[in-house]
């Protein structure tokens, strides 16, 4: 994936809030608005078309267009290479979205699942624009829906429809989904995981490391509701778990817990950030209160800088 054109530092992004985006008609519109918002901040045109910029060399193989042989390179190293351009560096992208019941929490505005869907849709839209194949895997404790990465015309529409139809249910098992994608991704792919990681098992970090070790580029979007960062309740509340078979309940005055809850939440984020750092996985944290375009723009900007 690449963002073409001017990659100067962003300034004054034009991004809609998640609640505003939710009011938009369809997921394709939402995806387009988010992408436009993200690129408006980067002063780039997301619809600039295919690139003709040289990207890399590839050793000649039978069937390759001999017109693209780099004769200068042959002269230098006495081997045949053909030039590949950017629009030809196809990258398969897998969008993994946690659709467990806990992702359905959203007291104000959108749920975490909706928010993850918006960002994933925008990414898929952007990839489709670039001609890169993007796939989708919705999972809870098992794989609920899988759309393999394709570039054909109707694929993006199917993907957006699947995202539109996603609903929260079941327990979460992100490690299992990662393992499954790891099996499918047979060459260097971009794997983007969206999850709240609230009940993620400890072996997820091992799974991340395994997938990363196979040469895949892995990005973890840690999505939390603002309530899960700082407890906002101010009266005695009877809390109960959201996931199936979670019988945990707690009757408490949340004001007594606010401080320690904030510390625990920060510790959770720090724990995953550290785990990702160790596994060489890109960690990105977002709350559902932040404009998705901002999150996307920051993600793209960071990747551009990393590539340079």
């Amino acid at each position, binding site marked *: 994936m690449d963002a073409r054109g001017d990659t100067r530092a962003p300034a004054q992004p034009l991004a809609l809030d998640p609640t505003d985006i939710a009011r938009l008609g369809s997921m394709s519109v939402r995806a387009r608005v988010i992408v436009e918002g993200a690129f408006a901040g980067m002063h780039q045109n997301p619809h600039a078309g295919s690139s003709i910029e040289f990207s890399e060399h590839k050793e000649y193989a039978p069937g390759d267009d001999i017109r693209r042989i780099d004769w200068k390179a042959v002269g230098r190293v006495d081997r045949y290479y053909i030039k590949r351009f950017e629009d030809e560096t196809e990258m398969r992208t897998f969008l993994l979205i946690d659709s467990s019941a806990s992702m359905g929490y959203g007291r104000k505005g959108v749920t975490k699942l909706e928010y993850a869907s918006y960002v994933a849709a925008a990414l898929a839209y952007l990839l489709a624009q670039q001609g890169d194949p993007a796939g989708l895997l919705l999972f809870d404790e098992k794989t609920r829906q899988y759309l393999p990465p394709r570039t054909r015309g109707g694929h993006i529409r199917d993907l957006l429809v699947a995202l539109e139809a996603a609903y929260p249910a079941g327990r979460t098992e992100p490690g299992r989904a990662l393992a499954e994608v790891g099996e499918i991704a047979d060459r260097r792919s971009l794997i983007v995981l969206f999850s709240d990681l*609230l009940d993620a098992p400890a072996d997820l970090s091992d799974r991340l490391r395994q997938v990363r070790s196979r040469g895949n580029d892995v990005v973890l979007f840690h999505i939390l509701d603002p309530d899960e960062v700082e407890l906002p309740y101010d009266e005695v509340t009877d809390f*109960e778990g959201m996931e199936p078979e979670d019988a945990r309940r707690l009757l408490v005055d949340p004001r*007594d817990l606010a401080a320690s809850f904030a510390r*625990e939440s920060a510790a959770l984020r720090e724990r995953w950030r550290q785990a990702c750092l160790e596994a060489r996985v890109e960690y990105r944290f977002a709350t559902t209160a932040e404009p998705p375009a901002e999150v996307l723009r920051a993600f793209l900007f960071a990747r551009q800088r990393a590539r340079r």
Partner: protein
Amino acid sequence: MHFLAPLLLIGLAAAVLPWIIHRIGRRRARPVRFAAMELLLRAEREVSARRRLRDVALLLARTGLVIALPLAFARPFAEVRSDLPAVTTHSQSAVIILDESASMRRRLHRDDTPFDVARARARDIVEHLSPDSEIALVLASEGSAAPVAELSSDRARVVAALASVGVSARRADFAAALRRATQVLASSTRGDRLIYVITDLQATGWEDVTQATLAAGPEIVVLDASGGQPWTNRAVVGLGAEPAPEEGAHGIAVVAEIANYATEPVRGLGITLRLDGSEVARGFVDVPAAGRARKRFVHTVSGVAHHAEVVIDHDGFPLDDRRACRVEASRGLRVLVVNGDPRTVRTEDEAFFLEAALRAGGSNFSVTTVLPDDLANRDLTSFGVIFLANVARPNAAAAAAITRYVERGGGLFISVGDRVDADTWNQTMKGVLPQPLGLKRSASALPGTRPEGETVDTRPAERLAPIDRRHPLLAAFPARGEGLASARFFQFLLLAPVPEVPTRRIVLRYENGAPALVDAEVGRGRVLLLTTSVDREWTDLPIRPGFLPLVQEAARYLAAAPSGDATASVSVGGKREIVLGADDKRIEVVKPNGDSRWLSPAPHAGEQRARHAVLFDETDEPGLYRVRGARADGTVDDRPDAVFAVTLDPGESDPARLADDKRPDRASARGAGGPPPRRRMELWHALGAAVIVLVLFESLLTLRFRRGRVKT
């Protein structure tokens, strides 16, 4: 517990309100499905212990508050049974006699003393008496002042006076205290007049209280401050020094008398002798049950004057576990006896009993007897004391020699008899006679019967009035003058009246008031005048037990040569006359606790020059009182010859309790008018304070937790 407004206790039902509110609050809790349960539960685990403690504390505080409020409004009170007599509830005029005598200093079981208990009970009475009552405060020890000498309604003043009273080392004298209390109450017009005597009920001090003197007086209530605890005690009740010839010329023997007041014998009681502050001997003594034992220490000393102290193993009353005395190494006192009526029958000789008394064992007197005619040929200055016994009429030369001798510091004892020519004496011996001699008087009535010491002599006779032991000459005699009180006086000389002067004191009187023994300072010397004879012609005094100590002490007193427990000692609270040295301008007396007092001889009205002696009366604590003399040139020297010991009255060591039939409180007073009174103790003040504390506690707790929330 009782309540003035019990209906308000209905409000106690509100005690369940905090619990109900708590339960309702939990039931009304909004259910929320929350994804981050794991984080929530972790946070809960972190604060749960503190939060639960806070919740319980808050719930208890609020419940307590809701309970305390209606309780306080219901005005609760408790009735406590007072240990004070019922009469204390009456409006009355009351005098509290607080016993602060030496025995009140002993330790009780809890390390407090009977005096502490007595003072606390006195304070209880003061606080318990009805507000319109009047109170005075009198102390029971001999010679003490009354802290509140007149009836007063000012409780604060009486309480302050009680707080300022300290326990003394003096002997108790309840007769004097009751007399004083009765006098105080005489000014009251109230019907209810009571005397509260708070004491340890030691028998000592009550001897002179008779039922007859109490009959017409105010009602007396006796309160026991000892708690009825039996008291066993051991004490050093006597200490004296005598020559110890077996140790040579410088040998002395210090003899201590140890009393055991317990019903069990004491074996191996540790006893230590200190001489001039240094421990020189240690030993053990066995003392029989309810008996006494003597311990004799023999020691060799150099020099003349020393002081000794004997200490026994301490018990609950350490004050009497030590005793001090002054010790004089052998220093012969030369005594000249002028026999004015010599007889061939020895027992009829005027000087027979006198010489016998002076030569009695241990006195160390060197006695020389001469006839009056030989007096002029003698060098009087070589004698410490001169006794003139029934000398008819001293001639002019002898009178001049005697006068000169006395004025230069000599001591003169004059006794009279049928040979004395009063007129001649009044002319020739005018300079030394304390008072002019008058007519001879014969007793006209038979004396009252006394249980002790009666003789077959049925002649009309006078007896001595009760003695005043404050005079150093009599300090060694028992309080009631045993040994002297039984003496009969058939004839005696009256003395011509003269203006009173401070340099003359009546030491002994007959019961009819006439002087028996007069003490006077003449120049730098001293004269004692006995108005009867020293043989058995006019009196049977010479055969009474008191004659020997009286004569010996008189000799020492006149020669200013005291020795041992007798003349160098004074009872606690007594006065000690200290003769200044020839060059002394003033003297310093250093008390046993190190405090000192400077004294200067003061001239008296009508005298041209200052007396060469001072009177020291701050003998509050037993022990040795050291004396230093300051000369005109500013030098200060110790006066070992003037050191004296202040001793505890042995009666204060005796734990014998006052017998019930001798208690001065009458049957009605002892019962104190029925059952002990009940006292109402208001409790709502405490509850009000509890409400305030609970409100503060609840507020602080709430505020603290709110602050905690804001900080986070």
